[in-house]
């Protein structure tokens, strides 16, 4: 039974991946008209990706989803708003500050800033700029999850927050240095990692289920949306201040 499910999941992972393979192969062979380099690497790598995706989904259903929901229920039953909000902030801050995609983008931003003459052209200045940027983004994600959780508890409509956030982005963009805008917009998208997303989703949905009068479908989602919005505002503000 279990074996059967595992094989079924392997097959569905293969289906998930098939479009990428098709696109890459069709373009390489038919349009660019060159042979595929390193065929064995491609096959082994693809098998790895399929296996990885299958294990990830298995673990997701068995661990991350129940864990996020169990914590949401415990906090709801405990009834301490302070600890719940502290947890929300720590989860957002802690998962973002070490996010590899964010580290890469912060270094990129530092090198742009130093070429543009915003900061000194020394390694130390670049490092401190990159670190400052990472902490800024992590703070903004922590803040976003905190506000998002508060929203679920209070039952505020999601679009108030989103419209507020968008207005913030639109107002601050014309004042931000041109070099930082592209990076600021991109940093919103990269902050939410593969482990954070299931945990945060389960937390939101779990809270909305546990609290009376909230609908998990209407109130449970939206934490991630807000967490990808605030970094844009914070990063542009950071670019203006430095």
């Amino acid at each position, binding site marked *: 039974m279990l074996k059967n499910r595992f094989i079924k999941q392997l097959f569905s992972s293969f289906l998930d991946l098939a479009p990428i393979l098709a696109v890459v192969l069709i373009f390489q062979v038919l349009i660019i008209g060159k042979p595929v380099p390193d065929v064995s690497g491609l096959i082994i790598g693809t098998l790895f990706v399929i296996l990885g995706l299958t294990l990830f989904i298995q673990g997701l259903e068995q661990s991350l989803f129940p864990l996020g929901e169990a914590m949401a229920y415990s906090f709801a039953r405990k009834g301490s708003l302070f600890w719940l909000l502290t947890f929300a902030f720590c989860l957002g801050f802690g998962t973002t500050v070490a996010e590899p995609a964010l580290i890469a983008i912060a270094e990129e931003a530092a090198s742009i800033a130093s070429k543009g003459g915003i900061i000194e052209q020394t390694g130390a200045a670049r490092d401190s700029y990159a670190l400052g940027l990472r902490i800024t983004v992590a703070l903004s994600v922590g803040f976003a999850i905190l506000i998002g959780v508060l929203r679920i508890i209070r039952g505020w409509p*999601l679009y108030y927050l989103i419209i507020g956030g968008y207005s913030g982005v639109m107002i601050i963009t014309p004042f931000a240095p041109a070099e930082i805008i592209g990076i600021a917009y991109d940093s919103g998208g990269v902050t939410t990692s593969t482990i954070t997303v*299931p945990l945060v989703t389960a937390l939101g949905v779990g809270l909305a289920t546990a609290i009376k009068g909230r609908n998990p479908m209407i109130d449970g989602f939206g934490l991630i949306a807000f967490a990808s919005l605030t970094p844009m505002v914070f990063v542009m503000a950071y670019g203006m201040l430095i």
Partner: protein
Amino acid sequence: MIEWSTHFALALLGTCRDILPIAAIIIGFQLLVIRKPLANPKKTLIGFFYVLLGIAFFLEGLEMALFPLGKLMAVQLTTPEFLGLNSDQQAPSWQAYTWVYVFAASIGFATTLAEPSLLAVALKAEEISGGTIHAWGLRIAVSIGVAFGIALGAFRIVTGAELYYFIIAGYVVVLIQTLFAPKMIIGLAYDSGGVTTSTVTVPLVTALGLGLAEAVPGRNPLLDGFGLIAFASLFPIIAVLSYAQIAQWLGNRSRSSKP
């Protein structure tokens, strides 16, 4: 083989380091604040281990197979020879880059379908909605949004238009749609914008953006190479809201046509 094993062990170690803060926060709060044992500690721990191993295999496989090829193709498609440009020619019109747009759209669509974070959210949405929202339907809607967003982003890099005009126009569309869309889809639609761009999409799309900004005359990779990810997180919102509106409209029509 030994060399490969060390490489894989390093990848696994890297994943462990990335999740260390999350594990520390969860364990810390579980022990100090909630002070209650987990319902099923062994199962949770094994599941956590699956997640770790899964991500390590996933990333390792991507590094081996898809990233080198995808990046190579982004470079090949943007070389002057492939685009048929001569160095003495004037800057070509934006139509010269048709294959770039097609590639951008196809790779955006395909990578989004394989994105693990989106899969997680789609599974959860299907469960919560009691099957009204299909995981596959949602993922395809999001993928179409990303495909359109990245193709438009490539067009923006080619023409050199201002990034934030596009973004603001997109926001306005989202705001208008929000007013008319069914309430229950709104949170999910906003979330799907944030989850589309992670492990698979970002490296490939960034390579495409930087390659394109280097190849197109008059573009600065530092200034123009970014912004594709922002497009890829904006358009899925529009796509999912539209999907919900169309589904609702079809539902209403079939209901009202019944006697």
